[in-house]
């Protein structure tokens, strides 16, 4: 009898752990639970203070803050907190703040508040001062006048970066919470979750409709998939591509958009073998981008030609693709003296096989797939590729222990091409992992840096991308398609090409 009772208790104890932990929700209150892989310590975006690392992405994505200008689906700027602007001269821009704009605490957003916020940004942020190059800010009523230390044709684009979210600096940062102007207010912020409530003082014409929002960081793709399947989440971002097909039915809605996130691989020019254009071109020709996108990304990406996707004026549509052609690749290698003289399956020169190390990381799950498919394809042209997919990749980068380094990067976060060239392509750029050094690129970058007007800047950007492609300095494998999966009763929740805007005032649950 004792044993029986024990078993009954044990069963009850175990089964209570299996139940759904659904808290009772007061009737009439709308709640929204959102699961994402994109929030967390590894992404350097915990907290909501835009003046700290990448936390501004969380401020903007989850509807807490807003920037002066925002990007439309063509990545062109539109007024947001700003109403209009005037380019006074090549160094000065005068911005008029929308008269209706208020912080979530009810305080008016005026020139002085914006000045205070931007000054705090420059004083505290690591990237912003380098990007913005602001020399002085003046406030007058609803106007702010920003002077730059040098010509800054893309200043407004940079101000629309998530770090440019306007917050009430006087309120400070309390437990990771800031006072912004967005449709929602953060009430609790941890490393894995953000709790939001409706901002009743929201100044926009469209008012927020959800009472409580929970943003949950779930970094494991399978856990995320299952949480969505069993109804714990209302919407989800960052599902593994292989799981996406589970949601392609009437029980779910999917919003997809092409982003400017590109999977690229940079050749290390410090390796004498890779200084040979024929070798770089042969390797580029051996990457089967079509099948990588179709099969390994399950169609959730489009083959890339250049750093920028086709929806941008300076994007893929301006360039001829490098065709996947193994025979032509073999011929190029042979032209440079790389032939398989010892019949071991790998081409060699001076008694040494053509063996390269491909470095990448695993936190972007598509990168190891690209590496492994490249490995198999390069074997077909006689190149031995060793894949090192490790999240400790920074050590290898620092020690120069790689011949090809592949990564995922948003190339046009500000809708302007210059950011990508200055961060990844020009000599001495922080992320120029391949040590690519081109005189033409340096001259063109100088020209771009001093040119105003979107059309003229596009023309120069096209020339720069063409130069990279002519030099085969990098391989552009694919542009990422971003997907949001949601329950059918969720409305106003759609993926945006910038990857910045997720929760907005439009969000509703029917």
């Amino acid at each position: 009898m004792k044993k029986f009772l024990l078993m009954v208790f044990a069963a009850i104890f175990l089964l209570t752990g299996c139940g759904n932990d659904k808290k009772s929700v007061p009737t009439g209150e709308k709640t929204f639970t959102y699961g994402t892989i994109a929030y967390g310590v590894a992404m350097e975006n915990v907290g909501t203070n835009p003046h700290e690392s990448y936390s501004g992405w969380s401020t903007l994505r989850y509807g807490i803050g807003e920037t002066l200008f925002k990007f439309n689906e063509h990545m062109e700027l539109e007024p947001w907190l700003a109403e209009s602007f005037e380019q006074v001269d090549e160094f000065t821009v005068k911005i008029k703040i929308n008269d209706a704009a208020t912080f979530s605490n009810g305080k008016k957003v005026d020139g002085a508040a914006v000045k205070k916020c931007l000054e705090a940004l420059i004083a505290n942020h690591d990237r912003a001062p380098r990007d913005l190059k602001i020399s002085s800010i003046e406030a007058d009523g609803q106007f702010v006048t920003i002077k730059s230390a040098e010509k800054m044709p893309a200043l407004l684009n940079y101000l629309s970066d998530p770090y440019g979210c306007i917050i009430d600096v006087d309120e400070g940062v309390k437990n990771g919470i800031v006072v912004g102007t967005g449709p929602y207010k953060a009430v609790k912020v941890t490393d894995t979750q953000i709790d939001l409530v409706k901002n009743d003082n929201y100044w926009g014409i469209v008012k927020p409709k959800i009472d409580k929002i929970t943003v949950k960081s779930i970094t494991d793709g399978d856990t995320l998939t299952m949480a969505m399947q069993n109804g714990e989440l209302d919407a989800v971002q960052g599902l593994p591509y292989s799981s996406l097909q589970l949601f392609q039915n009437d029980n779910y809605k999917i919003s997809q958009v092409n982003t400017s996130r590109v999977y690229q691989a940079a050749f290390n020019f410090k390796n004498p073998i890779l200084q040979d254009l024929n070798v770089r071109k042969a390797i580029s020709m051996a990457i089967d981008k079509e099948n990588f996108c179709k099969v390994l990304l399950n169609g959730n990406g489009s083959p890339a030609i250049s750093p920028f996707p086709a929806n941008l004026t300076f994007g893929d549509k301006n360039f001829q693709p490098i065709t996947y052609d193994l025979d032509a690749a073999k011929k190029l290698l042979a032209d440079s003296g790389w032939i398989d003289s010892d019949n071991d399956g790998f081409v060699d020169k001076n008694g040494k096989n053509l063996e390269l190390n491909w470095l990448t990381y695993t936190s972007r799950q598509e990168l190891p797939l690209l590496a492994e498919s490249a490995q198999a394809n390069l074997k077909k042209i006689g190149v031995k590729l060793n894949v090192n997919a490790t999240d400790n990749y920074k050590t290898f980068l620092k020690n120069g222990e790689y011949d090809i380094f592949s990564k995922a990067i948003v190339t046009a976060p500000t809708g302007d091409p210059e950011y990508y060239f200055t961060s990844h392509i020009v000599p001495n750029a922080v992320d120029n992992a391949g040590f690519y050094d081109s005189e033409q690129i340096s001259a063109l970058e100088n020209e771009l840096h001093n040119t105003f007007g979107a059309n003229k800047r596009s023309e120069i950007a096209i020339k720069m991308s063409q130069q990279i492609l002519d030099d085969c300095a990098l391989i552009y494998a694919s542009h990422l398609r971003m997907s949001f999966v949601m329950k059918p009763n969720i409305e106003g929740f759609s993926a945006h090409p910038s990857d910045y805007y997720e929760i907005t005032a439009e969000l509703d649950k029917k």
Partner: protein
Amino acid sequence: MKSLTPYFAAAGTLIFIAVFADFLTPYDPYVQDLEGALTPPNSTNLLGTDRYGRDVLSRVIVGSQTTLCASLLLLATISTVGSVIGAICGYSGGRLDTFLMRLSDIFLAFPQMVFAIAAAGALGGGLLNAAAALAVIGWPKYARIARGLVLSIRSMTYFDAVKMSGSSSVQILFAHVFPNIAGPILVTAALDIGTIIMELAGLSFLGLGAMPPTAEWGAMMNNGRSMLQTAPWVILAPGTAIFITVATFNLLGDNLRDVLGGQR
């Protein structure tokens, strides 16, 4: 007496498959065919294909080589090294014994898998580094057992007789000590094979063992993890292979203990 034949036969078959894996695979386990990716099991690909279009059966067969050979080699190394250290400690005693046993205490104080994950991570992954990490944490168990056995042998009269006969220490160790402790060590090792296979596969599953494109069961399961619902054969095939192998060697070890050790 219990018959060990069926268990040896099963384990022998697995070892045979591992040794001759290259000749047994129906297809090249490393050739990708993206057009034929994720084909469910059929008459051409008996266990289907993975996301790169590689034949899963061929990869499971070749994976047995990686997993099983690495595990057996690792086990042979740690059991030999551990036993020798233990025997020397037990035989010589004194400061050397105290030092080595305190060292083994330190290693035994760490949870084995946690230490292996940390060490393999610090060494930078790869099957060799994973095996090295497991070896560093694995030897003290054998050293402890060997030392205990040698201490009990030392108290026996035949041991005093051997000593009085004027044999050298090396002679005593090799002719009288090792043969007498070999049985229990062998049983422990046989029982350990399953654990070692699981641990190596575990490290590979975490991305700290075999590197792509090496076919290894743990790494294969990790690759197929996100496809459990959409293409279950990719993860079930290596998973079943691990289950069968571990079960076989555990049964062999259990029965070997019954026969050799005479205790349960």
